């Protein structure tokens, strides 16, 4: 069943179509939610809430090409994740004593040796805002201007947080590679 047909059946509250929608995108959506909310339980709740909201608003979905249905659902998930992150008003201060990034970027070959679960684990260790900015910019492709509007921060702040997130990830990658060499 193509996306357009699936969406149409879902808008008619066809239970089989709704189950098919879940089966098709749940795992992938859960991975997206885990990137924003490292806690597995929170990510699962976010994923389920996203599906429920998507089913409620499926009537407003417009097919624009292959993959647009997942893209539409993932945007709902990202917005919900950002709302949750914005609601978390109190944060732990992270002070970087040395902010200059002098770590060389890892090569493609080095990156291919690193398991995906490790990368997800390192991203999850980042502070909330840095992780969110990294996900939005590097994984989901939002510009700093869009990120600043979504998160209510300045573009400079977004750039700064991304730089700190990259620096931290490179440190973890470098440390991992060093341990692997031993």
């Amino acid at each position, binding site marked *: 069943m193509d996306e357009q047909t699936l969406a149409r059946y879902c808008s008619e509250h066809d239970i089989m179509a709704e189950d098919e929608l879940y089966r098709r995108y749940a795992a992938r959506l859960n991975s997206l939610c885990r990137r924003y909310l490292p*806690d597995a339980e929170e990510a699962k709740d976010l994923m389920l809430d996203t599906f429920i909201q998507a089913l409620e608003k499926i009537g407003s979905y417009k097919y624009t090409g292959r993959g647009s249905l997942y893209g539409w659902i993932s945007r709902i998930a990202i917005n919900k994740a950002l709302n949750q992150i*914005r609601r*978390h008003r109190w944060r732990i*201060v992270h002070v970087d004593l040395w902010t200059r990034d002098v770590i060389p970027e890892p090569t493609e070959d080095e990156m291919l040796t690193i398991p995906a679960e490790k990368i997800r684990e390192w991203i999850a260790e980042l502070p909330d805002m840095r992780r969110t900015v990294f996900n939005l910019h*590097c994984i989901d492709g939002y510009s700093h201007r869009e990120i600043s509007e979504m998160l209510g921060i300045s573009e400079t702040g977004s750039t700064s947080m991304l730089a700190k997130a*990259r620096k931290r990830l490179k440190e973890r990658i470098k440390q991992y590679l060093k341990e692997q060499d031993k």
Partner: protein
Amino acid sequence: MRKWEDIIKDKLEEIDEALPDSVFAEFQERRDNASPAAAPVRGRSPLVWAVVPAVAAGLAAVFFLRPANTLDEDIKVLDKTSETVAQTVGPVGIELPEIRSDIDGSTNSTVEIQEIVKESPVSVAANNDEPGRNDESALNDEPGKNDESALNDEFALIDESEKHDEPAVETPVVPAGSPYIPKKAGSKRVRILVPATGVVAGGGLIAALAAPLVRNGSFADADDINYLNNKSYADKTASALDKDGPTSQVPADALTGAKHAFPLKVGLSVGIPVARRLNVTTGVDYSRYVSKFTYSRSGEKTQVAHYVGIPVRLDWSFASMKWLDAYVGAGVEGDICVGAKFAGRRIRKDGLNFSLLGAGGLQFNVTRHIGLYVEPQLSWAIPSDAQVLDTYRNSRPLMFSAAGGVRISLD
């Protein structure tokens, strides 16, 4: 060569963890329970559930504390001895046709029934040329005068030619024998005054509980020495006492009363997250305790004590929106007196004291990092030998207060 971030993106998209069947069952359950109205976010109680009881309390206060005021509808019976035509007017300036009403053939008098509605926008014009006809020039308060007139059926009808451009209203049918002019629907104007108490009841509980409390002095030995020594003062410096010295005051200048004003407390606090909805709140509080002591001879003297405290509290945020957070918390506060004066002279201060705290509050997030908070607090001052001053705190160890301040959210 690809950038390392692109490789990260590809690797993350490769992750395809199969979800357990229980998650699918949970999805089906949520889907089946989902109603057209949006359900609250799982794990978060909508703030509206905290507001609903407050609104209900306010409405209950409105309806139960003060009855509604309604306009009086005066029906005045005027005794006319010479006229045989009764003049009737409608409440909204509609002139009704003349009718003949015989009240009592033996007395040969007529009764004018006039209905007066206050604040009528249209001044009622008499049907004839007598402008003062409808004035309340005479009131007939004899019972029975107004209950015998038989009104014609014409009375219930409005002369179409006399009708003004008024919105159509329903005219009730007048039962036969009724002496009263039927009121037109919509002509009654009812005002319900919203009492100030209704508004106060919703949010004034804190203010009511925070009102200054008065306590009669209950000192067994009502003099300066014993007052200042009641917490085992070590140094009884004369400068801390009345100018005539303590011995001359005993027993002439006895302490006859004490009033402790409700303390003023302001603070600056910081919230540090420790879990998803748990935060440790700490900061600095400043409190000012003012007490007035009345002596039999020297009159009233004022004691002012200043305290600085550091609270440490664990808060649980049970409702959170972009601009508003609601929370409850419990903890402990340690404070110390940093200055105290009695009748303008410095006196010995309290040492380090501890209080147990319980609080609930609302924080209005002005910016992402700065919020203004209002916190009703319950605190219990732990009895201690370090308390040497007689203040509101030791007269009422269990104290309710309302604190407010600025909170910085750390990121």
